[in-house]
């Protein structure tokens, strides 16, 4: 793999085109519906939150749009770095996997799912670099150290395994591991789900900074409206596998229209 083709910085030829387009997406598990009739667009640099209660189809939707699961109907198309928009279902497995480890990131709720727990923090961050063909130890290590600093992991922990890290550090390590190849689109599944409130705040703060600095497009699944308020510009509200409301974050949270969204917003304790 040519390094130039993989890291062309923020080459966005036409910011007016969506980076990800979802049309009529449906996922069925036999008779049961995971999600149905979902359509939305995501623009470069935009953060979209998918909110809803447990079982509303958020994670199913996320897995379908990130090509981790095949949808039963509908299309997901992605604008590649070369500016060509392609249907994910039409990509070969090799292309899809290259996309996943270069242009995309996926931050799991549980860092154990997204990290290699038995190799050091440095190798966890460096893995994607080696996967795209970097064969210079010094350079890989320097990049890993740089990224650990950016996610506020002390430099002397570079050779420690994630098993020795706290939950918040693991999550920050997972974020660094995903961002090292400068992806354009990152999927996040409840990235602050398992963390206590103070650690949550730190991770959120970090994420907000990184997303703004790198101009990432993000699809974030969360049941926490505060997270959505803090990070996202737009919100999709899901209930029973369907999108019940969609709009700008402030509009949806301040002036919810659908009765279910009103219920969700009303369920946040007043501060």
């Amino acid at each position, binding site marked *: 793999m040519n390094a130039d083709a993989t890291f062309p910085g923020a080459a966005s030829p036409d910011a007016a085109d969506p980076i990800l387009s979802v049309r009529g997406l449906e996922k069925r598990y036999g008779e049961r519906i995971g999600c149905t009739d979902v359509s939305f667009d995501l623009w470069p640099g935009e953060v979209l939150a998918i909110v809803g209660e447990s079982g509303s189809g958020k994670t199913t939707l996320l897995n379908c749009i990130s090509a981790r699961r095949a949808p039963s109907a509908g299309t997901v198309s992605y604008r590649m770095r070369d500016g060509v928009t392609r249907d994910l279902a039409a990509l070969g*497995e*090799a292309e899809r*996997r290259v996309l996943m480890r270069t242009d995309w990131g996926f931050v799991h709720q549980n860092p154990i799912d997204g990290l*290699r727990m038995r*190799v*050091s923090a*440095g*190798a966890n961050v*460096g*893995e*994607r670099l*080696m*996967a*795209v*063909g970097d*064969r*210079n*130890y*010094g350079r*890989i*290590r320097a990049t890993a150290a740089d990224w650990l600093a950016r996610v506020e992991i002390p430099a002397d922990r*570079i*050779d420690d395994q994630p098993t020795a890290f706290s939950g918040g550090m693991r999550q920050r390590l997972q974020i660094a591991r995903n961002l090292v190849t400068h992806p354009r689109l990152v999927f996040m599944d409840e990235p602050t789900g398992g963390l206590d409130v103070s650690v949550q705040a730190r991770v959120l703060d970090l994420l907000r900074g990184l997303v703004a600095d790198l101009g990432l497009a993000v699809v974030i699944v969360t049941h926490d409206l505060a997270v959505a308020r803090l990070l996202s510009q737009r919100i999709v509200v899901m209930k029973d596998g369907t999108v019940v409301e969609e709009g700008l974050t402030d509009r949806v949270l301040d002036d919810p229209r659908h009765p279910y969204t009103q219920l969700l917003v009303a369920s946040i304790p007043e501060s």
Partner: protein
Amino acid sequence: MRTTAMTAAATPGPAYNFAYLDEGTKRMIRRAILKGIAVPGYQVPFASREMPMPYGWGTGGVQVTAAILGPADVLKVIDQGADDTTNAVSIRAFFRKTAGIATTTRTVEATIVQTRHRIPETPLAAGQIIVYQVPIPEPLRFLEPRETETRTMHALEEYGLMHVKLYEDIARHGHIATTYAYPVKVEGRYVMDPSPLPKFDNPKMHRSPALQLFGAGREKRIYALPPYTDVRSLDFEDHPFTVQSFTEPCAVCGARNVYLDEVVTDDRGGRMFVCSDTDHCGTRRAEATP
């Protein structure tokens, strides 16, 4: 390589087919070998048979040897470089008994060398075949336990993970501390585990004139390196591959630039380094004392 004799055994006893395995099984194994030769470094699944020895004693190597053995072949078997260890003696005896073929300890006389852990010091020649006994054929196994995933990784040439292992070595020890089963890339395509070979022997695989066959009995895989195949040990640009070096020569024959075994000679810390390749050591001593 074909025989119609039902038994070539010199001693009376149960009548085995030539080289123990039946002809149908041998054909099946030869098909796997041919496929392995056609796709160097690719692990070909085969229907490994139950052999009259435990797994881990070279059942894969024995099946490959049985499949390629002809009545005119001369077999050498080494274990850790030595011709006189239990495993080597037993396998030689096994084929003498079931195939009635000639055996030797001399590398130059052998047409087939079955080995565990070593490549003989005497360079192999065109026309010779070396058969490796392989315990774990999958180089990615310890990093990725799922077989479905490792197969996909081989298919898509996703070998970044192999370098993660080498990275870990350098991060922990300051150098690549993997000393055996050191991963190699074959013809710029497949990453291959050269069995528990010390990395000292890795360069001997590169463009070897001999045919190299690898058999893993328990894991049911065969792979191969045809003669003159490119075999490169993986490394980093700033941490290139190097082989072990020994400061002293062999205590018995004085050879340098060979792989040495450390032998403990008493319980007071006495030790000596001797050639791991017993044939090489013996030949040198015979030449030195006319």
